[in-house]
Structures are given as C-alpha cells and as structure tokens.
C-alpha cells in the first residue's frame, strides 16, 4: 500500500477567521524520512497551517491522518502524543534552568522526583546519536542561540516525536550555524524521522529539502520534487502572477535629489542591528520601490526617515534640510507623509470617530484649530471632503472608525496623508488587504502624485505592484541594501533572487 509511505497527511484543510480565510483546501503529505520544505511569503498561511498541525488552531474543515489513521489534534499535547514536535522560531526555554531541567519540564510521566541519572544518560545517548553535542547540566542562558536550538530539538526527540516542524529555524542563526543544523536534519532524516521545514529562503530549500510545497495566499499551489525545479521557478511560484494594471505613467527625467540617506544604521528594540549602513536617494518625481521579504529592515528604514525611530549613525537630508532624528511632526511638517504598514497598530485610533482619525495631521493647524479649541464643525467638513473625494463607504463619520472595512479605513488614512500635499509620500504595503478596485485606486493615486512631480517610496512584497509602478527598485535583505535597479531593466525573478540575498552581479 502506498498510503503507508506517508507519516502525515492533511486533507482539504481550510481555516477561516472572521476577517479572512487563512488556509483554503490545503492537501499536504509528508513521507517517512523526508525533509519537506514549506515555502511562501509572509501572510501566505504557513504559520496558520503549522499551528493547525500542532494543535494551536482547529481547522474549520478538513482532516489530518497520521500513519493512515485519522486524528483530531486539539492541543499541542495531542500533537506530541501523536509524535508531532515543533521547534518554534522563538525558543520556549527557561533561561535559569539547566538543559536537563528544560527537557523534562512539563513532562507528566516523570513522576514527582526526577531520576536525573536516567534522564542524563538518555540525553547523552540522543546527543551522541545525532551529533548534537549537548551538555545536560549547563544552564540555558550560557548557551549560544545555535546551542539553544539544539536543546529544542533534543526536547522534541526526548518526547519521542517522529515528525518535526521547524518554523523558520535559520532566521535566528548566524550563517555559520546553518550548516551544522542542516547536518542534524539529515541525520534525523536518515533515522526515519520526517521533517517539515518552514522558510522563505530559497537557498536553504535547495540545500536541504527533498520535496517542496509552495503556499500562496492561503492555497497550496504546488508540491514538487527538489530535483525538478530551479530557484527561479520557485521564486515565481511564490509570488505568483497577479492582475496587472495599465497605468498612465508620464515620461520623466529625474535629476534633482529630494531625499538623500547616507550610511544609515538603526537598531531594533531587541538590540539587533536592523538597518545596516543603508545609502539611498530618491529623486523628485520618481517612485522608488523597496522590495524585500518582510522583516528585512524596510519598515525600520522608512520609520527612521519618518522620525519614528532613532538612527544610531548616518544622515537623512530631505530637500536640503537635515531631518536625521527629528520628531515625527517636524518631518511631517516639512513634507514627508507616511502610511504605516499596520494601520490599526499605527496610524489610526480605532475606537475614535472617523472625524478624530481624519484630522490627525491637521488638528493643530488652522482652520481646524483656533486658539486651543478644535473646531469640530470644520473638522467634520474636512472629513466629509476626504470621504467624498476618495469615496470612502461610511455610514456616519461620527461613529468609531473600527466599524469601517479594512479597505475603507485604508482609503481614509491614505486620503488623510495625501490631503497634506506631501513632497514625499512613504507608503508601506498600501494595498495589503484591499480588494481589486481599492488596490487599483491606491496605485493610481500614487502614479498621479508622481506625475505631478512629487516622490513616493513604496514598500511592498507584491513584486507585481513594485514592478508595475516603480521607477527604480531598491532591494533589502537582512538590513542591507542589496542593490538598486531600474524597473524597466529587470524581471521578477531577478528581484526575487535579490530578495533572497543574492547580489545582482552574482545572478547570471
């Protein structure tokens, strides 16, 4: 029977959330002793799918089979009992405990007093078998990130798992640590264990996996053998082919520099360098697209330009003025308006009315403000103008903005920023979550302000969007600027490869 070759089978898995469908009819199979890579952009539904396998979510529809038997996985404990272990991107370890203590933590069959000798012996056995090099009595906080990851693997092995799910395991590793991890994965595979490897890095997929499944917008679009595909084909599968719009882009000769960023360095809250020595310029009248897989420093770069983060090094000159580390309001008043990626988290106050949200950029200026009193009549007039000109569907502008749909919220935010008549508009994922009509509307707006001689920085993961409306494209990878290319001279695959960290000169 062929069925028996599969250690795990997921049939027709659908997961619906109130707002979206994160997984649509996914059919996925995992053979015994294979490394199966799950590839997809952020928001493609990888994490949701893994959480279903690991019992964090229940699927709306569909069933899961393990060794040809149907199972219901309601909690992570169920998953473990069915032999599924997960290695999370953010480790689930207690720093102040030893490796051994972390391993037995939460295990119910150990009794009240832990037989340390027995556990230790077993740990060393496992460690030797897979070349993990674990010291059971060492405290976790003394270990490097790579070693901590090995502890996570041992934890799962100790619990007798046969199926391993690794959620972007290399994201936290230094390049030198990636090789040894892959070595361990190969040993696990040889021992008959099955591995699901989640990533969006194409090189790693090619290096270690046997089969590859590609998720896109919640659907599993392809499952292929590694030997049958090239990196370029994978890149194309990942981003897909979207509807392309025709835009009326005026010929423009770019000369004058509007924004000049030099050697910019920014650190994230975690202390990690998130923008690494970026030098970049934006000309007057151009749309500069910034491509990159999310989390590679694009957000932090533009937030620093908008005054929301502090640069540790470097300068930002805008229209002849030094705006490095100035306040958000200073930057906004000098003509940079910013549309943030996560509009509910930053950019809108969801409990407040549409009026309160619409005047966020001009409540401190005439005619909205007179003295220290806000003229709410004027504010309503201003809001109504935004609503009318951008055809925002809203029942009552006095009611909370959270009652609007995502698309209409975005329109209102977009319009609010455009009404300020910026010299430079920074738009992060402006069309994320919008329907086709709204997407087209937003893109046309960006083109039209470009045609007026103003500039736009567009951050997007959607390569079609970037390619169709940008004049130049800057690609970022792990905080660095991989390269800047003219939009007319490259294709999607090239950009896709650059997004995976490959420099233009290294692409043949």
């Amino acid at each position, binding site marked *: 029977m062929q069925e028996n070759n599969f250690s795990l089978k997921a049939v027709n898995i659908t997961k619906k959330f109130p707002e979206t469908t994160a997984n649509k009819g996914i059919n996925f199979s995992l053979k015994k002793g294979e490394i199966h890579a799950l590839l997809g952009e952020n928001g493609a539904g990888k994490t949701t799918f893994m959480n279903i396998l690991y019992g964090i979510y229940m699927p709306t529809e569909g069933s899961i089979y393990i060794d040809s038997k149907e199972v219901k996985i309601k909690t992570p404990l169920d998953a473990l009992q069915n032999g599924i272990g997960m290695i999370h991107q953010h480790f689930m370890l207690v720093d102040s405990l030893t490796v051994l203590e972390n391993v037995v933590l939460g295990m119910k069959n150990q009794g009240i007093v832990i037989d340390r000798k027995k556990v230790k012996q077993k740990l060393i056995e496992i460690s030797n078998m897979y070349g993990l090099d674990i010291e059971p009595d060492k405290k976790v906080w003394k270990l490097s990130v790579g070693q901590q990851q090995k502890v996570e693997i041992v934890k799962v092995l100790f619990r007798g798992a046969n199926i391993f799910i690794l959620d972007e395991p290399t994201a936290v590793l230094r390049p030198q640590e990636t090789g040894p991890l892959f070595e361990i994965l190969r040993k696990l595979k040889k021992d008959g264990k099955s591995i699901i490897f989640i990533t969006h890095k194409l090189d790693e997929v090619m290096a270690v996996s046997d089969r590859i499944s590609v998720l896109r917008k919640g659907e599993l679009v392809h499952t292929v053998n590694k030997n049958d595909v090239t990196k370029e084909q994978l890149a194309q599968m990942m981003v897909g082919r979207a509807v392309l719009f025709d835009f009326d882009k005026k010929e423009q000769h770019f000369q004058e520099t509007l924004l000049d960023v030099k050697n910019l360095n920014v650190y994230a809250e975690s202390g990690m360098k998130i923008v690494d020595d970026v030098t970049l310029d934006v000309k007057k009248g151009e749309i500069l697209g910034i491509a990159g897989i999310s989390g590679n420093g694009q957000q932090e770069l533009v937030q620093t330009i908008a005054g*929301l983060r502090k640069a540790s090094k470097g300068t930002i000159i805008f229209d002849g003025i030094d705006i490095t580390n100035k306040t958000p309001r200073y930057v*906004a008043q000098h003509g940079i308006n910013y549309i943030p990626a996560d509009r509910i*988290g930053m950019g809108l*106050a969801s409990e*407040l009315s549409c009026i309160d949200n619409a005047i966020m950029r001009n409540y401190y200026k005439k005619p909205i403000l007179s003295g*220290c*009193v*806000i003229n709410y009549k004027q504010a309503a007039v201003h809001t109504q103008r935004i609503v009318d000109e951008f055809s925002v569907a809203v029942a009552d502008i006095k009611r909370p903005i959270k009652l609007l749909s995502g698309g209409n919220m975005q329109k209102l935010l977009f319009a609010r920023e455009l009404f300020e008549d910026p010299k430079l508009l920074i738009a992060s994922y402006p069309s994320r979550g919008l329907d086709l009509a709204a997407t087209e509307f937003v893109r046309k707006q960006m083109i039209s302000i470009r045609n007026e001689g103003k500039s736009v920085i567009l951050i997007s993961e959607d390569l079609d969007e970037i390619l169709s409306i940008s004049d130049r494209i800057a690609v970022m990878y792990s905080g660095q600027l991989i390269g800047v290319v003219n939009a007319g001279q490259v294709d999607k695959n090239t950009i896709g490869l650059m997004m995976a960290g490959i420099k233009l000169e290294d692409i043949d």
Partner: protein
Amino acid sequence: MLYFEKKENISNKSKLIISLVSLLIGIFFGGIAIAVVGINPFAVYKSLFTNAFGSWYSFSETLVAATPLLLITSGLILVFRMSVWNIGAYGQYIMGAIFSSYFAIFMPPDLSKPLMLSLMFFGGLLGGALWALIPAVLKVFWEVNEVISTLLLNYIALYVLKFLMYGSWRNPTSYGFPLSKPFPESAQLPIIFQHTRVSLGFVFALLAVIAVWFVISKTKFGYEIKVIGNNPTTAKYAGISVGKNIITAMMISGALAGLAGMVQVSGIIHFLQIKLNANYGYTSIIVAWVSYLNPFLSFMSSILFGGLESGGYSIQISMRVSYGIVGLIESIALFSIVGAQIFLNYRLRWKK
C-alpha cells in the same frame, strides 16, 4: 453552547443600566452582611436613604461629601481617558491639604480673606500637582508603572502628614492630640447655603466638571488625550508628545485632588489633622468608573456616592451598623461594574 458575540455599538442606555445594576448588586451583598449581624437590612437602607436624601439638611450633607468626590473624579477622568492609572488621589489630596494649611497656620491671621483663601487655593493645587508630578516623571522617563508608584506615594503622603501633626505643626494647646491650631476665620471657605456645611468648594467642583468636559470634548489637549488613550503608537506617529501630555494631565489630576484636600480643611474641618477623609481618593476611582469616564455622569454618580457616604455616617449612629458596610457596597459595585464590561462589549448567545 453559550458563547459571547461582539457587539458593534454600545448604547448609552445599556451603560446606565449596567451602572445601576452594579450598584444594586453592591447593595444586595451589603444587605446580606447587615442581615448576618442580625439587623434588618431594609430598615438600615431606609434609614440610609432618609439620611442621605430625606431632608434638605441631609441632602446638603450629601453635597458636602459629593464635593471632594466631584473634584477628584474630574481629574481622574482626564488621566484615565489617557489610560494612565493614577491611584494616588489619596496622597495628592493630603498634600493639597498640607500645602494649603501652611498658609492658614503660619500666615498672619489678619490677612484679608480673599488673599488668604487665594493663597490656600493655589497652595492646594500646587501640593497635589507636585505630588502627582513625581510618578508622572518616573513613568515618562524611566517607565516606572504609575499604579505602583502612585499607590506607594499615598503612604508617604500620610506619613508626611503624621510627621507634621506629631511634630512642628501640632497645636501646643491641643493636649497632645495630633491637630494643628484652628484656622482663623479668614482661612475658612464661605458657606453658600445658610445653615448647611456646603461651602464655596461645591462651586469649585461644578466648575471643575464643566472645565474637564470642555477640555476633553473641545480642545487640542483633549484630542491628544483621546488619541494617546486609544493608541499611544498612533499618537507618536501623529507627532503628539506623549510624555508631555502625560505629565500635564497627571499634574492637573493631582491639582484637582489637592484642591479637594484644601476644600476639606478650609471648608469643613477648619484645622489640619491626621483624619482628613482622604479615602475620597479611592472612592473617586469607583465613581469615575461607574460614570464611564463621562464628566456629566460623574456629577450624578458623585451625588449618589456622596449620599452613600453621608448616609453611612448616620446609620452608624442611628442603626449601630458599622460604616464599613459603605466600603463593602462601594467595592462590590466596582467589582460588578468591571466584571460587567464584558456585557457592554459582547452579548450572550446560545448556539447548538
């Protein structure tokens, strides 16, 4: 299966019902406690009600208790709207009382009344504001949680008061009691209704409610408060200085609590002592929540809770019921209203 469904809109009617029901739950459990000690709870509540609202004089006593509640609550509404949790009105009230008493005790008693009262007025504001400035600065610059710092400063304020009352501010002729010397006539707030204890402080309270309503609903500062309270990240994005606004609002809140302290010593007690009814600082937190941080609702709630306070004193004497009952009713009402938030945002549904 029972489940909660998110409501889109919250009507004012359901807010009012939940407030009143919460208070009734408090009264219900208070009634049980009274019955346990063998006293008829209905008789107690009847007496409480008559003593709070039954006659003009008892109602005036209710207004006397409502005055500090109103002053403190208006200030709390301002900071609570910003999601800054000032639990320190108790200490700010004491500090306001101390600062204003300084003038009454140490200035020449023949100072003109308007001058003396102005000094005390601003002293009260200043004392409360400075005491609130400490946690505000700690929060803004060092991210110290204001709930803890304001709460702990309450105890420090009380010990400062004790230090003064057992030390240099004690009246040498008080036979060792921790009291200051009585305030001169020039340091006493005028009474606005004859034969009652309702002082000019009640007018201050009314003005404070109107001012806070105006600030929140009409001004730039109020707008910034709303945005910060709803989403501090968005506030920062919009160029609002979050730290500056927190410090300003905290100081206003402290100043109003300090003013309540001034009104109490200058309008009611007429000397400084250890027992200043600073518990108004805690009761006001309940009043603010029961009113959903709405200034006008807080006016009504203050009168209601003022009645509970003043009626509570009377039943202690007339019915021999401990005043603690009032605290019990208040705290159960707070629990109920906080617990009832879920019914505001969700409705209960049944699904098979």
